[in-house]
Structures are given as structure tokens and as C-alpha cells.
């Protein structure tokens, strides 16, 4: 996006050098990973600002089009401060769609969302590619998320590409190692009892505000967890894998 000057090597985005080249930004839709939305603006007003910045001609029409695409038509007139995390993510994706970009860059689009919202956002991203024809680059440190969206990945560590290709081959290496997953929220003690019956669970440990689950089949765990949570009526605030960071991946891939 031309925000950082390359220290080494060269980079071309859509055939152009992005550094000091603001013109290229009209071809790229960018969804940042942080929440810096103007909380006192409505989603609609924010998107109109983005449309103005990108020089979109029929702003009202385009805003209504993208809010429909991300299923935010009903809520776009509400103030962003009252949005849920998932709604904020949708508005950010909508803002990336505003300029009719040739390429979409989504930086951690699922960060901080609960499993149900994640599933919906993944469906949205898939639909943007399959139905609307967008070329999408998703940046994520959770490989599992990426796997549900694409098969081809490039793995970066400290600014260097350390692996690229089919995600299954890379994941297969990682899956040989047990994963520790932290779940925080209400009713996690009951959840712990339920999880112990699952074949992929090695152990469950109680921690502050939740549990830490060691699993030997992360795929099986993440596939079944939404149903388990729904059946047990457990409300969780946060869930993350301690072994999904790039550091861990790097260790798996490079340091053995």
C-alpha cells in the first residue's frame, strides 16, 4: 500500500511500485486489522467519506451497493460506536470494496470475532471471490482461518517468505504437534467436562477465566466447537490457539 519503504528488494503491486504512488490506491481495496473507525459516525457516512476520498462518482449508489454486499444495509444508518465486532469488520470490508478495486487486501479480517461471526465472514469473503470476482489477499496469523478460504499461501516470518504453496502440506507438518487452545467465557467449566469426551482432546486444564485444551486434531476441534458451544449453551468471550502464531509455525517448519 506504499506505507512502508522497502528496505531490501523490490515490490510491484499490479505492475507498479506502490511507494509514493498514491494513484495505485484506487486499484486496491484495503481492510486494516485495527479498529480505527470513527465511532460517532454512522456506517453510511463513513462509507460516503471513503467514497469521496476515492473519487467515486455516484457515492450514494455505491455505498448502498457495498452495504448490501456485506449485509449491512439495515444497520448502516446506525452509529459505528454501537456496532458489534462482526459489524465493524463488515463495514471495514465494505470500505475496501468502495473503489471497485482490482485487488482486495484483507488484513486479519477475522481478528477478535467469535466462531459464528468468523464462519459468516469467511462465507462473505468466499462469496466476494466466487460471486463478485474479486482477487483477494488475506493476511492472517491463524492458518486455520486461511485454510477455510484458500489453498495457496505464502508464509512470512520477520518480513521474509519462509514457505509457499499448498496449505495442506504446511498444515500437515504443524498438525503433527499437539495444539493448546485457550477458551475464556462463562460456563467453561461445564464445557471442559463435555470436551473430555471428545476423541481429539488430550487434556483440559482450568486457567483464569477459562480453560486450556490440548488437542491432537485441531481441525476436528475447530470444526466441531461451534456445535458443542451451541448444544451446551456456553457463551465464550475469547478463543485462541497458543500454537497458531507465526513463531510456533516457524519453529515447526524451520527449527523442527
Amino acid at each position, binding site marked *: *500500500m506504499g*506505507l*512502508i*519503504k522497502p528496505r531490501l528488494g523490490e515490490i510491484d503491486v499490479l505492475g507498479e511500485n506502490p511507494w*509514493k504512488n*498514491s*494513484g*495505485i*490506491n*484506487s486499484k*486496491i481495496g*484495503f481492510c*486494516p486489522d*485495527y479498529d*480505527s*473507525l*470513527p465511532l*460517532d459516525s454512522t456506517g453510511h457516512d463513513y462509507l*460516503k*467519506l*471513503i467514497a*469521496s*476520498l*476515492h*473519487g467515486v462518482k455516484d457515492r450514494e449508489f455505491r455505498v448502498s451497493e457495498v452495504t448490501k454486499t456485506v449485509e449491512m444495509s439495515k444497520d448502516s444508518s446506525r452509529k459505528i460506536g454501537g456496532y458489534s465486532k462482526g459489524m465493524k469488520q463488515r463495514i471495514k470490508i465494505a*470500505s475496501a470494496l468502495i*473503489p471497485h478495486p482490482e485487488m482486495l487486501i484483507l488484513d486479519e479480517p477475522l481478528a477478535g470475532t467469535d466462531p459464528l461471526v468468523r464462519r459468516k465472514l469467511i462465507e462473505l469473503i468466499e462469496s466476494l471471490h466466487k460471486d463478485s470476482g474479486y482477487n483477494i489477499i488475506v493476511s492472517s496469523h491463524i492458518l486455520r482461518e486461511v485454510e477455510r478460504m484458500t489453498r495457496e499461501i505464502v508464509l512470512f516470518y520477520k518480513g521474509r517468505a519462509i514457505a509457499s504453496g499448498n496449505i495442506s502440506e504446511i498444515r500437515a507438518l504443524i498438525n503433527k504437534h499437539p495444539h493448546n487452545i485457550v477458551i475464556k467465557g462463562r460456563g467453561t467449566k461445564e464445557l471442559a467436562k463435555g470436551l473430555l469426551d471428545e476423541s481429539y482432546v488430550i487434556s483440559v486444564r482450568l486457567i483464569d477465566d477459562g480453560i486450556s485444551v490440548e488437542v491432537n486434531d485441531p481441525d476436528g476441534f475447530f470444526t466441531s466447537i461451534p456445535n458443542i458451544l451451541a448444544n451446551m449453551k456456553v457463551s465464550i468471550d475469547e478463543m485462541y490457539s497458543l500454537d497458531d502464531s507465526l513463531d510456533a509455525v516457524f519453529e515447526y517448519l524451520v527449527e523442527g
Partner: protein
Amino acid sequence: MMVNLKGWLALVFFLSRRTLVNKKIFIVAAFALILSAIVTYFTFAGETTPGIEDVADLLDIFVMTFFLLFIPMIYGSSILRSDIEDNSIITIMTSPLDRRLIFFGYLVSLYFSVIVVMLVLTSVGPLTLFALVGIPTGAIDVYLKACVLVIIGSIVYSTLYLTVSLITKRAIYFGLFYAFIWEGFISFIPGGIGNFTIRHYIRSIRSSWIEHGGFAIYEGAEVEFSFLVLTTITLILIALGTFLIYKKEIE
């Protein structure tokens, strides 16, 4: 350079609205109330009815000496820096607007916001006085000239703090040093150090324009030279700010 005037104006409008309509506005309202109360008190507690000299002194003490230093500092050191710190500037930087235009967008919205706030604060005292005792002869002229001076000062100080905020995260500390130590203390050391302050040239213009109040006897530079210095400082700071934002990496 890509010029998208509508986009640039939308940015200016968005930034101005955000700068003016937030919690800081309550601080400004509180200052305005205090000024109004002070004027009311002196009007009724004084032995003589306030006149044009009092209007000039009121503007000198509160507006020129205090608000003109601090309001641009508070707004100027934060409007762009806080966006860099919380990464919200990336939304703007990843638009097709040229970075130099983005800097001008921040600059113009800062000018607008600071001038609006400063004119409110400049007007509260005199208008309260006019409402209580009527308009002393020549007071409107003093008031209008003070407004023009406030606009000039707002532009120069705002440019200074906005540009400094691109150099350091702690632009507010620079501002406090500049206001308290440099302009408030070191500039009074004999030997002409005072000439190296923005205040010196604003006071020079003030003493030439307004022949009332204590600051009327200030021995400063010629008006034309003062304008030249203030314009030069502003243009250099704008050029520096434009250069800095053009080269700046946003991480």
C-alpha cells in the same frame, strides 16, 4: 499528482467536524464562561465603568498571552499525531489522495477549527462587556483588529505544532517548552533573544494596529517586517511538514 478536490474537501470537512465536535469543546466552553464571568465581575465591582483601554487589556491578557499559545498547541499537536498513533491515518493514506494534499487537508481543517475556537474566545469578553455597559467609542475597531491578529497567530502557531507533531510523538511537550520556557522566560533575557519568538512579531503588529491597552507601548519590529517574518516561518513550516509526510513511513 492526483487531484481529487471533492475527496480533499470531504477530508477537510470530516477532520474539522471531528476536531470541533468532541470533548475539547467543553473545555473551550468552560474558558468562555470564565471569561464572561470575569468581565461581568469587573464591570460591576470596578470603581469606574470599563472603557476601550479595558477592552484592549482584556484581549491582550487572555487572548494574546494565553489562549493564542495554548489552543493551537492542544489542537495542532494532536490532530495528525493521534491519527498516526492509532493507525486511523491509514484509512486516509491508502486513498488515492496524494500525501501532500492529505497534509494540506489536516492543515486547513486545523486552521478552521483553531480559528473558530479562538474567535469564540476572543469575542466572549468584549461582547459581554458591550452587553453590560454598551459599546465604548473605538471598541469595535479594537475588537475587529484583535480578531485579525488572532487569525494570523492561529495560523502561525497551528502550523508550528502540526509540523512538529510529524517530527516527534511528544509535540505537546515541545509546545509546553516553547510556550513556557522559550516565549515565557528565555525571550525576556536582554540581548534580543525575544526577537526569535512568534509572539514578538504578533505583538509588534498589535502595538502598531491597536493604540490602546498596555501592549500599545511594545517596542517591536515594523509591521511589514513582522508580516514577512511570520509568513516566511509559516511557509517554511508548511514546506517541512509536506516533505516529512511525503517521506513518512506509517507502520
